[in-house]
């Protein structure tokens, strides 16, 4: 088995695979946050609607997408397990209750729309509507808290930094959801969503700054990393993109606004990655080069990912193009 032997001896094509997988993990997480983010945001904006028809429209907008979007989180978990098994084990067992809280919130978000549609009566719909909002708001909050705790290497699951980071991610999902609604809806629903989106964008900016300040204050060893030029550039980028988002929404250029959100998510994820590097888990002190799986499974996973991820992206291209454009009036549920 000479081919296996060569796969076991050196990284594929001599590539810096540990660093590439570290980046790929954050790319996968960012894709999840951007795509499922608009589902969460729309779930949060669901709380601002009273009209049953508008509620139906919101559910119909995310209907074909949310499940596929959530799979990016599944892939994130799998990729972390495959590429950095010890980190997957340490991280998930360390934040034990937080992980199950995330799973419960995600479960609520997934079940609620499906249940909401099962019956027409008001009481049933009111409570499943609440469940949908709670699941949609809690999931990004807890995920944000998880990522920030991971970043600073906190031993506790309840930290000020985590809470601020969680709120920042919640605001970001509202920004995301409002932009997507700009593409998918018309009329007062879109106008209201845009107004909330602008408010959320400004809040997001404030919360990012507050979160960074909290990291600066509570994690002295991260201070040099925070002052790194790339980090400064990413913060500037976030300010510029937020302003761009606000302008785009005001001018009803929703594609531009949605693209700006993609940039904001990429900026946030890159910020976390740059500050974290070279560690992949600060709490245990595991660095990227220490935590990476052995060469043979790493090469195999790299081949798998290189073949499959472009194919997966093409599935999403098909899905989003089939359901592109504003929702037809009769496409609302019911």
């Amino acid at each position, binding site marked *: *088995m000479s081919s*296996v032997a060569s796969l076991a001896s050196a990284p594929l094509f001599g590539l810096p695979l540990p660093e590439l997988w570290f980046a790929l993990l954050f790319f996968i997480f960012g894709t999840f946050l951007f795509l499922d983010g608009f589902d969460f945001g729309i779930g949060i904006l669901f709380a601002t609607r009273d009209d049953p028809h508008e509620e139906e429209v919101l559910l*119909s907008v995310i*209907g*074909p997408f949310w*499940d*596929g979007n*959530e*799979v990016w*989180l*599944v*892939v994130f*978990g*799998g*990729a972390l*397990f*495959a*590429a950095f*098994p*010890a980190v*997957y*084990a*340490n*991280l*998930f*067992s360390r934040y*034990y*209750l937080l992980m*199950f809280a995330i*799973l*419960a919130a*995600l*479960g609520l978000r*997934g*079940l609620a729309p*499906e*249940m909401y549609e*099962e019956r027409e009566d008001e009481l049933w719909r009111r409570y499943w509507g609440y469940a949908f909002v709670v699941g949609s708001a809690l999931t990004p909050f807890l995920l944000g808290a998880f990522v920030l705790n991971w970043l600073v290497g906190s031993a506790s699951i309840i930290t000020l930094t985590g809470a601020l980071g969680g709120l920042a991610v919640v605001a970001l999902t509202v920004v995301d959801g409002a932009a997507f609604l700009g593409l998918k809806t018309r009329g007062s629903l879109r106008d209201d969503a845009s107004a909330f989106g602008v408010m959320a964008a400004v809040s997001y900016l404030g919360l990012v700054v507050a979160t960074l300040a909290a990291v600066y204050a509570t994690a002295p060893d991260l201070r040099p990393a925070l002052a790194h030029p790339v980090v400064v550039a990413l913060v500037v980028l976030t300010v510029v993109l937020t302003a761009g988002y606000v302008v785009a929404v005001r001018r009803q250029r929703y594609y531009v606004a949605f693209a700006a959100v993609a940039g904001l998510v990429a900026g946030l994820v890159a910020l976390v990655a740059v500050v974290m590097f070279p560690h992949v888990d600060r709490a245990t002190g595991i660095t990227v080069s220490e935590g990476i*799986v*052995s060469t*043979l*499974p790493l090469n*195999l*996973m790299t081949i*798998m*990912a290189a073949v*499959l991820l472009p194919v*997966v992206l093409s*599935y*999403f291209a*098909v*899905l989003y193009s*089939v*359901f592109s454009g504003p929702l*037809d009036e*009769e*496409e*609302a*549920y*019911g």
Partner: protein
Amino acid sequence: MIDPVLASRLQFAVTTIVHIVFPVMSMGLAPFLVYFTYKEIRTAKPIYEQLRRFWVRIFAVSFVVGTVTGLVLEFEFGTNFAAFSTTAGELFGGPLATEGMMAFMLEATFLGIFVFGRERVSDALYFLSSVAVALGTWLSAVWILIANSWMQTPRGYEIAVEGGQQVVKLTDPMAAYFNPRFQYMFLHMQNAAVESVALFMAGVAAYYVFRHHVWGYPVEHPEFWQTTLKIALVALVVTAPLQVLHGDLYARHVYETQPQKFAAMEALWETDSYVPEYIVAFPADLNQLFDPRTKELFGIGIPGGASWLASGGDPQATIRGLESFDTEAPPVAIVFWSFRIMVGLGFWFILLAFWGAYRWWSGDLYEDDLLHKALMGSSLLGIVAVEVGWIVTEVGRQPWVIQDVMQTSDGVSQGLTSAEATFTLAGFVTGYVLLLALYSYVVTRLIRAGPPAGDDLRSASDEPAPSEVSADE
């Protein structure tokens, strides 16, 4: 407070036992949905559109609940079995990541089109979506069973020590991932899923056929339920005998590769030849009725049956007893009885299949009320058989989480406290009971609502009615 090791094991048992129901429904429905979609497009007959749309709704609910409960499992290896994940991550993480990318993504994205997109895509792309969804569900099983079969019969690895911890190193991916156990598991699981769904369809259809033909109550769309019954019977006639046939081969492979599990299946303590296949067995001393590892058993069985099963035809063959292994035996009674329930159900399903087929052939399929009652009573028994089958597989290999490499109790997360583990266990028990109740409620409602009909059908007129554009009725 429950000890974290026990709580983690119980929690994993609860979460897998509940989760498997939903993949069984989606994997079992998948080939039916491809068939219905194909026939709908080819024949343009309303019945196939009804079948497709009715069962897609149940598929979609199963898929959503399966996603929610499946994500839990993927995280649970890290949260509760961190030591296992660190030790086996090199072999185990890859298949899980690949499952996500290769299978789950395919299923989840094309399901969006399959459920919501009938009016937005061409017939060809729509059919392709049904195939993609079906392929996705089955590919999921491929990767999960590759991971699981490696834990049953590990190969292609070596043990190293890294940072004071024993770690499994992948040396030969072909040996590890093309594991000999995989083929038995895959055939047995996928066939079981189709068989379980066929039983479910037949049971539901029999209820309406029974009401219509035997009681004479007015039933909407009797022809829909008659066709469902017939399609389910065809599937049952094919799958039921196959299940027992490859089950037999599977059992022999267990005997050859996991003798301790096989001995537990047969409750055999002392190595012996001409071992009987007990049909029932009880502790000779009734005080030990609730001890799963009691050794003095009194049973009624087929002489030489277990030896015959293990060796593939020799009733004199010797079987290793549980006393000959260094490790503690698994809870034998659980494995023994689960195995018997599974096998008993397997034979009952064959009987049911041929009984139905005979009535169909003799022309009184709709009038045999006893058959209908039997089908109704058996509608959920396919899922029961899958559950007890997995209990044989997973409880039977205890105390090992990786056969002969790592014990389950060594795999649990080190830092986990009793309070945390007990809290989440209680949460899962409560939450999953509610979840199962909710799922049953929704599926029952969907069945009662019956298939879409009349103007609601796109095959009924050229102009689709606005309300049927959405997948939700």
